[in-house]
């Protein structure tokens, strides 16, 4: 198959765009203190932050899957003005500055918050400053990515598959589990990867709602921020580790699993 040649201006602009992505990464890799990197890696602060980040981001993704897929189903099946309202609500965290998101979470779930005050007064439960709060902050900012991806997937599904399944005697849950979900696998997968990546990198909402404490709420982005002035080498190493993990995951994803990504 002969491909038409891409005109030069497009190639040039694309090249500039690529450079914008490559140069910062190149800077990170080239300026990295490779000699010290291993030592830094084994530093307890680094490992703690890494472990916590992994735990929080994966938990946030799990929650996003459990709550987000049904939300996407509802969103895809709703019509009219109600749909626009729901759509706006679920994508709001995507456009909100993360710190604003953190403040909103405080106002809802803090000790004097809308819901938080009941929890505190009745059960003595305080959510801010806990690992749960970090998970909540990450879920808040990252779940919309999953919802949007899955909703798009549902909309593009041929509804005849579900009708065929029903005509063969499959009830709602059988259709959902054996037909709908398998067909949605690429959308769910790419949505989950995007969600996880966003959760991993979350800073503003986490620091505002969950605070910062090593081992409890100090995720890698926060650790990098603090390390930047006092221990720049550690900051760079941490950034590198995060970069390496992200690349490993993204490269490991196969094309056909990712679909739209």
């Amino acid at each position, binding site marked *: 198959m002969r491909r038409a040649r891409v005109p030069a201006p497009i190639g040039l602009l694309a090249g500039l765009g690529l450079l914008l992505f490559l140069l910062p990464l190149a800077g990170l890799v080239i300026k990295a203190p490779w000699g010290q990197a291993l030592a830094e890696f084994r530093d307890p602060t680094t490992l703690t932050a890494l472990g916590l980040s992994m735990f929080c981001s994966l938990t946030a993704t799990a929650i996003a899957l459990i709550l987000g897929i049904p939300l996407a189903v509802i969103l895809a099946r709703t019509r009219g003005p109600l749909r626009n309202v729901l759509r706006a609500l679920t994508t709001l965290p995507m456009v909100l500055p993360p710190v604003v998101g953190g403040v909103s979470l405080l106002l809802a779930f803090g000790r004097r918050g809308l819901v938080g005050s009941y929890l505190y007064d009745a059960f003595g439960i305080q959510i801010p400053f806990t690992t749960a709060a970090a998970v909540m902050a990450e879920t808040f900012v990252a779940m919309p990515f999953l919802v949007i991806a899955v909703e798009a997937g549902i909309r593009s599904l*041929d509804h*005849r*598959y579900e*009708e*065929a*399944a*029903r*005509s*063969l*005697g*499959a*009830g709602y849950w*059988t*259709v959902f589990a*054996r*037909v709908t979900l*398998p*067909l949605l*696998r690429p959308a769910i997968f790419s949505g989950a990867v995007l969600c996880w990546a966003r959760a991993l990198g979350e800073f503003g909402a986490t620091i505002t709602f969950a605070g910062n404490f090593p081992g409890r709420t100090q995720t890698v982005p926060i650790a990098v921020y603090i390390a930047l002035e006092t221990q720049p080498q550690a900051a760079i190493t941490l950034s590198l580790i995060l970069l390496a993990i992200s690349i490993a995951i993204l490269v490991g994803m196969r094309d056909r699993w990712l679909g739209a990504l």
Partner: protein
Amino acid sequence: MTLEASVRVHRDDFTLDVQINVSAGETVAVLGPNGAGKTTLLRALAGLDEIEGRVTLEGEVLDDSERGIHVPAERRHVGLVFQDHVLFPHLSVLDNVAFGLRAQRRPGATAAARRLLDEANLGDRAAAMPRALSGGQGQRVALLRALATEPRLLLLDEPLSALDVSVRAEVRRELARQLASFRGVRLLVTHDPLEAMALADSLVVLEHGSIIQSGTPDEVTARPRSRFVADLAGVNLLRGRAEGDHVLLHDGASVAAAGAGSGDVFAVVHPHAVAIYRNRPDGTPRNVWEGVVDSIDSYGDRVRVRVKGAVPLVAEVTPGAVRELDLRPGAGVWVVVKATEVSTYPA
């Protein structure tokens, strides 16, 4: 086993309002142009949409809008075959065919599915994925999938129209065979008159949501009541045995047809390829038959002349020609068709 349906569904551009009864053992084709409401009717009978009216199958009430009864699709035991098979792309052929039995938690699903595939000579494709199948194979597997659960009602939505013309014949034969041995009620919808007449015992013609004609294919084509049926009736469809360069019809008449092949065939002659003469002509056409004008129907600038005879045909001529030849019912004429104008295909 009988399907009795009185269905009313409101759509944007029309209202479907039909009454239809189908007995087990006969294949009914609902024929109509696109937008007539055929798919709406099918979906209603399948239980996918809600209707006004009443549908009973074998005495069991599936729909009764007055009493608020609506049995949903998953509990109707209806087999549904779509235009382009709609096989589950993530499941193998075998899993597709076994899907219904498994969904209904019936034992021996895998074995039953395998048996059905073997019987249809598709056993070697059991592990294949739907995207690896040809159009014809896909449609045949879709049919098996629908039949596997032994439904009481089999609904087919334009089962052949998505297939290449070259494959259609083979799948049609398979379909006809399966339909003949299917013991439940069978209903197919199509916009292709050939498909309808080749598969159906009885035709129901649907236009703008209403039934305008019903009966056997012959009855329906004998007296068209609208443009669509006229077009439908306009296709001369003959059936016989091909023997190289001619087709021997059942009543003994022989139709010269170029490249007829051999075996059981349909022969198609378009009305505009049929010429009418008052006297026996002298010329190259090999198909020259005597006949008597049965009826003349004019549709604006075209006139359909139905001729009875050894080979009954409908000819399409101009009003001028009718006047000139003074064609009237009962007039003796000769009809002529060039052998090259007769197209045949295996029945």
